């Protein structure tokens, strides 16, 4: 039998920082944390990420990409907790309705509930209005890519456009540590170094609202636990297209590794962080080579942007 690293109480294992019962064992830090100290730990790390990586100035407008899933729900809740009382900072939530049958309507409902409760401005945009087609319709046509490629590219485009219209200086995305570690590993496996650099561009790219990822140091299960202990309204259902993505395989592989070697996800991210400035010298983000797409006018590397390509323009 394994020895327990924490002290036992009559009910369970005691928090490393106080006498209360712990609700989580962080293998990577060796700490047991009670509800109060877990919440403190998560919020402290998010504030640190924002201070260290994203210098938020006065009079900024932060747009928050809100799907209604656990990550973006926690993101909005915490950004509101940090900046909600600042009269000089504007917050606006943006939800994209891709048109995924039996899935997106529920998550939109959850997201509305949250912005209503918090009193945050909320804009909802749809693929149907913007592109004349829902994701379901797009993927039923003969297609050369997976559903996630269509969804990712088109959603990003609409998010950027809406953020710009709303005068946002930042676009906050709910990517957590697992997402980041998966993307880093995925790009390594594909040998895609320029995409690796674009994951964390050292400088602002003209024409795009700066993306910020405040949750990037928080493991996925801790984001979920934070949502549960704060009783946030969120949807736990999975996107019906999720099984199509190769990301799932990388996720399983990383989870397997993390449970055998705690701290793996953190190491992947911190190693990547050290690599980016070096890689960026050889592989500069393509800001100098950007042209306007001849269909929609968005900035892109070729003459036709990825979104217009996927939408069938030639």
């Amino acid at each position, binding site marked *: *039998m*394994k020895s*327990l*690293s*924490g002290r036992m109480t009559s009910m*369970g*294992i005691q928090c490393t920082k106080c006498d209360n019962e*712990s*609700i*989580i*064992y962080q293998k990577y830090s060796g700490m*047991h944390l009670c509800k109060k100290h877990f919440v403190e730990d998560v919020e402290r790390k998010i504030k640190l990420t924002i201070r260290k990586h994203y210098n938020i100035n006065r009079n900024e407008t932060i747009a928050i990409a809100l*799907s*209604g*899933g*656990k*990550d*973006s729900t926690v993101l909005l809740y915490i950004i509101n907790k940090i900046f909600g009382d600042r009269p000089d900072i504007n917050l606006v939530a943006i939800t994209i309705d891709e048109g995924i049958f039996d899935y997106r309507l529920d*998550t939109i409902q959850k997201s509305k509930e949250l912005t209503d409760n918090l009193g945050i401005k909320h804009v909802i945009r749809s693929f149907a209005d913007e592109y004349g087609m829902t994701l379901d319709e797009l993927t039923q046509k003969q297609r050369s890519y997976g559903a996630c490629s269509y969804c990712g590219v088109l959603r990003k485009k609409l998010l950027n456009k809406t953020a710009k219209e709303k005068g946002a200086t930042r676009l906050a995305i*709910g990517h957590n540590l*697992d*997402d980041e570690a998966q993307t880093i590993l995925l790009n390594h496996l594909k040998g895609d170094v320029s995409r690796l650099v674009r994951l964390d561009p050292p400088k602002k790219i003209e024409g795009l609202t700066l993306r910020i990822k405040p949750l990037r140091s928080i*493991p*996925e*299960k801790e984001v*979920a*636990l934070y949502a*549960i*202990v704060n009783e946030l309204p*969120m*949807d*736990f*259902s*999975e*996107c019906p297209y*999720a099984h199509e993505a190769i990301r799932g395989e990388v*996720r*399983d592989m*990383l*989870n*397997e590794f*993390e*449970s055998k070697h705690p701290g793996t996800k953190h190491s992947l991210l911190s190693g990547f962080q050290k690599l980016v400035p070096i890689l960026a010298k050889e592989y500069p983000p393509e800001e100098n080579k950007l042209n306007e797409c001849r269909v929609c006018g968005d900035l892109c590397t070729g003459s036709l942007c990825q979104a217009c390509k996927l939408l069938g323009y030639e």
Partner: protein
Amino acid sequence: MDMNRKNDITVDVKIVPDDNSEQSVNIEKGTTYEDLLKKLDINEESVIVLKDGNATPLDGVVESGKIQVLKITSGG
């Protein structure tokens, strides 16, 4: 083997949102939640374990009661 039976306990485990059916699992006394997940072939990184409705550290020893294994799927 029957000698060991009295050192076993039975717990009710429900995996959500996958199958909402409950299963009874026989485990040896002193088994941790981590071991229980291994036995169920579930990776500990992908779930939160609730014991009688409350989150519980995975290195804790399983005691009889209702256990919920909450699968956390990436939304987005």
